């Protein structure tokens, strides 16, 4: 029913957002692609000409590449497992009748609103410090030797910090999904004598499948890009140099822009593989 006039008006109204995002996407992307085929060292001679796929080969054959892939997988995988498992449990718990539900929700969600540099520093200094950290006191209290968390158990520490930040997100989304579950179905199963574990496995979990997938996909995209948590804790040492951090170091610390850009292209491809699945789910929902 839209007239020709309102159509063109609509196009005009959309134009600024579309043009801006198109520029934001294309300009840096083309520049990254351009640099990735060049030997480009801003502090040591500048543009040293085209090198073909050399940067791409050198990025994956450098000795830091595979360790960074492993660190990335360990962090993303560890955080996903912790946040999804505990997120499901917490969502079920929070969905039960209780007193002060609103306040508990607020307590659980709070970490999500803490800026990454604050949460990383608070954990690093006030909890994980081997001398004055609370964990050190706790360990000593039980007669154990304090752990030097960020050097001896560096990956575990990062996973803990990041899980603390993202557990609220997973919990909140899973709680939203659980609340849309038809409680009559659960009650009927209970009356038929289905034990709690069976009710969980056959009714609750399948119902949550979609929400869990969304949590996994969105978190993966954000977790692949975590930066501040490593920047203020280990600076990439002790095996915590993720792919993102490695690229950052190549580009800004050692100013090897060509090499870093090739790494950037790999990161973009990786994120897009995850994004395709997410977009499909979102797209299906748009039709409905």
């Amino acid at each position, binding site marked *: 029913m839209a007239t020709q006039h309102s*159509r063109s008006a*609509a196009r005009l*109204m959309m134009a*600024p*957002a*579309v043009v*801006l*995002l198109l520029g*934001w*996407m294309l*300009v*840096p*992307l083309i*520049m*990254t692609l351009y*640099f990735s085929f060049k030997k480009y060292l801003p502090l040591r001679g500048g543009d040293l000409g085209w090198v073909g796929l050399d940067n791409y080969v050198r990025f994956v054959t450098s000795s830091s590449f595979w360790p960074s892939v492993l660190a990335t997988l360990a962090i993303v995988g560890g955080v996903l497992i912790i946040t999804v498992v505990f997120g499901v449990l917490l969502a079920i*718990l929070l969905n039960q*009748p209780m007193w002060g*539900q609103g306040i508990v*929700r*607020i*307590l*659980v*969600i*709070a970490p999500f*609103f*803490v*800026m*990454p*540099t*604050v949460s990383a*520093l*608070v954990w690093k*200094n*006030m909890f994980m410090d081997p001398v*004055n950290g609370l964990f050190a006191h706790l360990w000593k209290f039980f007669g154990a030797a304090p752990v030097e968390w960020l050097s001896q158990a560096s990956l575990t520490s990062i996973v803990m910090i990041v899980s*603390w930040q993202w557990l609220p*997100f997973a919990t*909140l*989304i899973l709680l*939203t999904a659980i609340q*849309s579950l038809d409680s009559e179905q659960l009650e009927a199963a209970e009356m038929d004598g289905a034990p709690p574990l069976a009710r969980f496995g056959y009714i609750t979990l399948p119902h949550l499948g979609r929400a869990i997938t*969304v949590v996994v996909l*969105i978190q993966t995209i954000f977790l692949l*890009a975590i*930066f*501040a948590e490593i*920047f*203020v804790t280990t600076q990439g040492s002790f095996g915590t140099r993720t792919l*993102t951090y490695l690229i950052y170091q190549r580009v*800004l610390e050692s100013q090897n822009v060509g090499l870093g*850009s090739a790494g*950037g292209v790999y*990161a*973009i491809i990786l*994120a*897009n593989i995850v994004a395709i699945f*997410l*977009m499909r789910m*979102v797209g299906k929902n748009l039709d409905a």
Partner: protein
Amino acid sequence: MARAVTQQRKIINTAAAWGVGLLIFFPILWTILTSFKTEAQAISDPPVFLAFDWTLENYSVVMERSDYMRFLWNSVIIAGGSTLLGIIVAVPAAWSMAFVPSKRTKDILLWMLSTKMLPAVGVLYPIYLLFINLGLLDTRTGLVIVLMLMNLPIIVWMLYTYFKEIPGEILEAARMDGAALKEEILYVLTPMAVPGIASTVLLNFILAWNEAFWTLNLTAAKAAPLTAFIASYSSPEGLFYAKLSAASTMAIAPILILGWFSQKQLVSGLTFGAVK
């Protein structure tokens, strides 16, 4: 009998949920408590929980020593400016997609979402180089632009979702009564859209306030917001726990309060409507 069982279950649920809730909240609580201790009490062995001499000294020290107000002001300008600019660009776009949908609307929405998936580190150097050449490095203007672009897809999406829930019949009725496009937007749509716009503003202000990739990499002394201010505590000042805590508390308090109001929008906003 059945009632007694539910009552008992409710007590257990309450205890378990409060226990877990407090455990998750504990690092924040501990930070707030430590901010009121002296440095000696902050590292006392064994740690003191509540029985210490409460003091506001750390707050005054932090505010005097490190130009706290400048960092705070930068955060407000950057988060506020990028959100405001984003809303100005996004409202017309979301409005037209919601009320004058075409065959391509869905594709455009999904494409906008896909730009959000681009890893920032992949385009770090180009943005850095552009910032140097345009004189935007370490300026609030530069960060306002980058954070606006970064969050624009979320803003468009959230607004689109809200606008779509406004019934189209109301618009037709207004049109029949002879309302012009301008009046339609001003008197019919705006009042209905205000709650949606408000929640979008809130969530995006929070996201921009906490953003810590671009703010750390594109600022130095002048335009650094609170994220960078806290990062400067990484060492050796970070060993002054009470001051670190006071600085942290001041950086997160406003957002914690705002965040509590935006719980509901968080789900729809960050899952792009994939979970309802």
